[in-house]
């Protein structure tokens, strides 16, 4: 399938999300569509998939102009999209989900009907390990993604769009996905990969297209474009490189110490972070790392062990969680765990010192204190009185970073601090995070981005099934070695 998007534009209110974008998608090729948050790449693909209708411009499929008023029509035309938020029914089995997606599904689907065996075969070709009877919500994220892909392919898609597919995968799962995508293009399908990771481009793409502020600013063969060139296209300038405190402060005092901490699915975790040290924690999602962070922050009670901060016992079972101004905490899922969505940005930024506010706090004063933080971390909208619940995911993340990382702290626990952030916002958050380390904070940094961990952390602890099963010196660690431990096979490293 050969697609031409010509002069597409889409405005939301007064904001142009996509502005006169022209893009070619060729059969048998992987096109990586890159850009920062809000550059318009998702919107452009939603125009193609019929989620939004364009204000101007046209879509040509194999030379014929088509209007795509709905995703239903897009599917009928042979387009498929694998969304970040999967469109599977969690309570149904893999087979039932696929049966629902069949184009000719009758209103009643027999659970033991013989035609379902064709579906099983279809799943097996894509993902040999998946049990068709397993409930979808019991599957790991990587397998859910494959089921989603299977669903799309079941409808004979000839152009498949992936929205940030690697965000949720371990290195080995990602490698498997890249191989699958290669297989699709070999069969002549067109593939679009929405991403903001350069590693994805290098792993899989034939061509890159870069969007900035609603425009497609560049299209080039992947091997012709250097990383630096692509980043410059995305950001519009050369971004500042983040300077991590490279030398590990081996002799410094231990500031944050976990002794046999068990909480939620985390079991018996021992870790010690020295002043000025960045200790990275890797692991596939659900390995207990977020529970560990929540336990340190006091959001989850410990079932065993203790957390020591600067020699004082901070957390222990049955120890009341007091206020901890000396600890910075970037919680996972900020909307759920770190902000009051009904309240203003100014108040959300003052949350940590709410107990120290005067009896009658002045709103003007709160806004005055909030403004520089909002400006420094580039939170949009830059209005201290805006409600936090209106912010996009990336901006919420910036808001939390602004609150937690602006002042000096004894220790920082950062859980996916750059989730959903683009290149420049990521650089800003890393700069603040590592800046705290340089000024002597102990930093515990939980991330799903292995490349960033390898690049910036001093040491990397790998969690699997609730336990720390390996501790690497980042300078000596390899992506393959850490990845093997993330999958629970530390013996593969030795081999």
């Amino acid at each position, binding site marked *: 399938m050969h697609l031409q998007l010509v002069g597409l534009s889409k405005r939301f209110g007064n904001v142009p999300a996509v502005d006169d974008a022209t893009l070619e998608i060729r059969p048998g090729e992987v096109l990586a569509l890159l850009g920062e948050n809000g550059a318009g790449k998702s919107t452009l693909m939603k125009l193609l998939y019929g989620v939004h209708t364009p204000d101007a411009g046209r879509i040509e499929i194999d030379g014929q102009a088509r209007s795509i008023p709905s995703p239903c029509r897009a599917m009928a035309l042979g387009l498929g999209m694998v969304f970040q938020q999967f469109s599977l029914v969690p309570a149904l089995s893999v087979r039932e989900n696929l049966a629902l997606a069949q184009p000719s599904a009758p209103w009643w689907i027999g659970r033991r009907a013989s035609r379902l065996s064709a579906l099983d075969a279809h799943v097996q070709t894509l993902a040999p390990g998946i049990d068709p009877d397993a409930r979808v919500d019991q599957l790991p994220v990587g397998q859910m993604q494959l089921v989603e892909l299977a669903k799309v392919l079941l409808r004979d898609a000839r152009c498949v769009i992936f929205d940030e597919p690697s965000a949720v995968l371990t290195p080995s799962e990602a490698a498997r996905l890249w191989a699958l995508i290669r297989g699709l293009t070999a069969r002549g399908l067109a593939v679009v990969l929405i991403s903001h990771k350069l590693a994805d481009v290098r792993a899989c793409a034939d061509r890159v297209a870069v969007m900035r502020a609603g425009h497609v600013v560049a299209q080039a063969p992947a091997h012709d474009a250097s990383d630096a060139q692509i980043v410059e296209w995305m950001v519009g300038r050369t971004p500042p490189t983040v300077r991590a405190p490279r030398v590990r402060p081996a002799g410094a005092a231990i500031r944050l110490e976990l002794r046999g901490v068990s909480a939620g699915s985390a079991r018996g975790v021992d870790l010690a972070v020295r002043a000025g040290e960045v200790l990275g924690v890797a692991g596939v999602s659900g390995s207990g790392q977020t529970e560990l962070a929540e336990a340190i*922050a006091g*959001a989850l009670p410990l079932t065993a062990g203790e957390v020591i901060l600067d020699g004082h016992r901070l957390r222990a079972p049955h120890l009341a969680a*007091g*206020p901890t101004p000396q600890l910075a905490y970037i919680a996972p899922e900020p909307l759920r765990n770190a902000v009051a969505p009904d309240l203003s940005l100014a108040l959300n930024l003052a*949350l940590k010192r709410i107990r120290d506010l005067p*009896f*009658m706090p002045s709103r003007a004063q709160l806004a005055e204190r909030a403004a520089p933080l909002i400006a420094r971390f580039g939170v949009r909208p830059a209005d201290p009185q805006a409600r936090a619940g209106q912010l996009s995911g990336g901006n919420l993340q910036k808001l939390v970073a602004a609150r937690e990382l602006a002042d000096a702290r004894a220790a920082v626990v950062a859980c996916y601090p750059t989730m959903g952030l683009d290149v420049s916002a990521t650089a800003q958050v890393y700069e603040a995070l590592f800046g705290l380390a340089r000024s002597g904070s102990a930093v515990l940094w939980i991330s799903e981005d292995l490349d960033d961990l390898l690049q910036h952390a001093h040491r990397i602890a790998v969690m699997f099934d609730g336990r720390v099963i390996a501790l690497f010196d980042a300078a000596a660690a390899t992506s393959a070695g850490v990845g093997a431990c993330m999958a629970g096979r530390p013996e593969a490293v030795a081999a």
Partner: protein
Amino acid sequence: MNGTQLQRAGLAIAAFAALAGGFFGLIGRGPLEMLQAIVMAAAGSRYAVGESLLRATPILLCALATLVPARLGLVSVGAEGQLYFGALVGTGALLLAPAPSLQLPVVLLGGLVGGAVWALLPALLRVVADVNETISTLMLNYVASLLVTWLVYGPWKSPQSQGWPASIEFPDSARLPLLGDSRVHAGLLVALVMGIVLHLLFTRSRWGLVLDVLRSNPRLAPLAGLSIARQVLLTMAIGGALAGLAGIAETASVQGRLQAAFANGAGLSGFLVAWLAGSRVLPAMALALLVGGLLAAGDGLQMMTSVPSSAVLVVQGLMFVALLGAGGWRSEVARG
């Protein structure tokens, strides 16, 4: 109040006029004549105004009692029970009979403490065992009102009351002062002052912000170093004390003795008022006065137009429906 709000208010009034007019037509009365009669009965004379304020007082206190926990996100329907238990403890304090000069303060204190205790019960259940406060407060309403019934039929029944189930009459030294020559008692002033104070606390103070934060996202408590348990106990106790005050103020003024089923649904009216006001104090105060006026009008209506007083309850229901249906009246509390 901005343009859309005015529009909605207009819509609500139009809807109410249409609904009420239809109802009066149905019972064979001219709508204008009836509406006029209601207004006259509620506010047509000094006496009528006094009666309206009298009815509004316990409703306003019970609305505040619902509203304070609601600022934390709790749904308490227990104002009625707290009102009864406040009256019970206040009367009990009188029966223990201190010196006459101490009677009024002790009785009032008993009302406050009784209401607070009755509210702390479900609050503790909530904090310790995570029991839903809506269910427990609802159940405790029956317990409290039946306790009062049992006492006035049994151990506390006055020998002078000739079989009528009531406690002994409150002596003058234990009675709440009345305002002017009306039957309105000092409880109204307390309710109004408490309303203003709570309004300022909710909208201006650090405590108001703390409640806003915890209502918006209770998971932020450890992050901000706040204790939800403490705020649950505090807001429920304050609310309970206000409802208890409503109970003892009725008992120690208008009624002059503890009787069974004296609340007349003030607790539930108060809940409705607080809910309709979106847990905002000032609209709740206005609504409580309106509802009080309507209820008082019911009594007058029966005398003036020979329409049964329950017609006014229908009118009250129609008013609530109009306010809700016009949309937007119940916008949520203003946020910081």
